[in-house]
């Protein structure tokens, strides 16, 4: 077992699946010789050839549409969208097509494709290399949306995604690609889709978060424990659609104080759905309003550093929200 970054873990997951299953292939922009703009697919074209690691034209609808067609004919494609912001041209193929294949054919067809997309704000990214795109896809039955944050989870969930007979949107927060390394098992393993993970046990408040925000939340949680004796339970959904309602509700009922922290523009983000579930199902256990923290309702993270830093919720804002909740 070696320590790996998120980026390495995902690359390794891809390589292993391609080695063990000939029907797995990759298509996307610059995934071949260049190994992807983030280098996730580095070395794969050398190992598996241009037929199985294919540089697609700049056409996202085609990339996802072709992936659907490949899956129809026995393949297990992994489509890479270079930046989540550019998934929009493929919106139709994802929500109206891939997600509907099974239901609309009364179960005759299925659509086992994986769509990888890096998302989230990053310095120097600007409006169009920064967006949190998850809410667009979390009202679409038939689709699964996952967003693991830690390397070992990511590798295991990628394997689950590729082996899943349904379309899975696999979101990778750009700022977590190289943020830390952790032990990642060498043997074949899966981390199931649809199960949340409790990162930290606590009795005082529950904080649900994912992606880059999760790292900040965990940091802040340690600080609050030391400085204020506030013990936060921190839950990562890992799968955003469908949600693991049980794990989230169990924690909400235990602490009675609930906060969701996301990097997306708050209004209309998945924080709304998570809050609504808790407000409905854990009402009798709540000792405080269900709270949410997210980015302001402006189009996306701006390019210039002072503006971007003002956009993304930082440790100070998160601490303030957690303390407010704890003291409620």
């Amino acid at each position, binding site marked *: 077992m070696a320590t790996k970054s998120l980026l390495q873990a995902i690359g390794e997951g891809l390589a292993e699946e391609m080695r063990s299953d000939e029907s797995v*292939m990759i298509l996307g922009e610059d995934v071949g010789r260049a190994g992807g703009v983030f280098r996730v697919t580095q070395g794969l074209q050398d190992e598996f050839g241009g*037929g*199985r690691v294919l540089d*697609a*034209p700049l*056409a996202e*609808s*085609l990339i*996802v*549409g*072709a*992936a*659907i*067609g*490949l*899956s*129809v*004919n*026995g*393949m297990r*494609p992994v489509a890479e969208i270079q930046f989540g912001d550019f998934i929009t*041209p493929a919106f*139709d*193929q994802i929500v*109206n*097509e891939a997600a*509907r*294949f*099974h*239901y*609309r*054919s*009364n*179960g*005759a*067809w*299925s659509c*086992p494709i994986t769509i990888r997309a890096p998302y989230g704000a990053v310095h120097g990214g600007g409006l169009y290399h920064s967006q949190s795109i998850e809410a667009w896809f979390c009202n679409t*039955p*038939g689709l*699964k949306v996952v967003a693991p944050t830690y390397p070992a989870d990511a590798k295991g969930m990628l394997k689950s995604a590729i*082996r*899943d*007979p*349904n379309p899975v949107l696999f979101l990778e927060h750009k700022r977590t690609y190289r943020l830390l390394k952790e032990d990642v098992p060498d043997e074949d393993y899966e981390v199931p889709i649809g199960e949340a993970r409790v990162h930290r046990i606590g009795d005082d408040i529950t904080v649900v978060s994912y992606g880059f925000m999760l790292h900040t939340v965990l940091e802040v949680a340690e600080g609050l424990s030391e400085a204020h004796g506030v013990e936060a339970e921190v839950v990562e959904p890992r799968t955003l659609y469908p949600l693991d309602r049980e794990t989230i509700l169990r924690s909400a009922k235990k602490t009675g104080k609930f906060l969701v922290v996301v990097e997306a523009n708050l209004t209309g983000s998945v924080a709304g759905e998570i809050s609504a579930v808790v407000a409905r199902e854990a009402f009798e256990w709540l000792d405080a309003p269900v709270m949410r923290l997210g980015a302001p309702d402006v189009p996306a993270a701006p390019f210039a550093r002072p503006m971007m830093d003002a956009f993304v919720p930082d440790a100070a804002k998160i601490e303030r929200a957690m303390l407010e909740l704890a003291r409620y």
Partner: protein
Amino acid sequence: MDVKDARARHEVLGLTGEDLLRMHYSMLLARRVDERSWILNRQGKAPFVISCQGQEAAQVGAVYGMRPGYDYLYPYYRDLAMTLFLGQSPREQLLSVMGKREDPNSGGRQMPGHFSARELNIVTASAPVGVQYPQATGTALAFKVRGEDGVVLVCGGEASTSGGDWHEAMNFAGIHDLPVVFLVQNNAYAISVPEKAQVAGSIAGRAQGYGFPGVEVDGMDVLAVYEAARGRSSGRGGGGPTLIEAKTYRITAHSSDDDDRRYREREEIEAWRLKDPIPRFERYLEEIGVLDAEAREEVDARIRAEVAEASRSAEEAPPPEPEDALGPVYAGR
């Protein structure tokens, strides 16, 4: 049935009299099933009908020679003649028209004309126009990656070329020399919008810009379409992509929801009716001595009986249960 004239068109194409009769049967069967759907609609038993009438030659010509269950078909909502040819039954389609539980296309979930047959490699179709093209290229790519000789036939109306998906697929097919036939059934209208407000230049003429052949054919002539498609959709010839633009005409309104008097003249329709592909093909069959008037009546009577029986049986079939709406949403592993 013997072929009388050594120089007949079908012979040049390598078709036997039996082939021709099969083609004729498929076209006429589709017409009769289609007509039956309108009757069911008027009887209040079918909320929605969308027709193949006028396009049977384009469809049968293109699909003839495909290997069901091996090659893949991405049909569009008018391709009734194709799906019947490949093996779906009139009863099955009428189950779909009436939204019955046994509807093999969707179990009553989708409108009629949204075909699907897994065992026949007829890929589940939907309503958003044009989405099938990128999918078809992916299916063709899978054949190529595995070194198999399968072919993919993908269909749409002329308006399906206006959206980006068509172009992205054409480009991709050209780049990778994929075994896919793009069949555009240009029937002059997209609901009310005439071709000149829909298509700049020429559809067939565009193939060249993608580096592969494109042909315009008389879509009312089943042999002409077959000629353009053979060695392609048949898979026997292998090779890269082809674009076929079949010039045809939509004899009915766009659908049972449409009133076409708003936007086209009756005379125009009447003029096109004279080119109806079925009587036209029958004239050819009679000329070459493959099907005389009497035999034609016999075939038609047989088809009518078959369709009537299919309709009766489909009408009796039960509707879906309300709870059927709840699934299946996700495939199990």
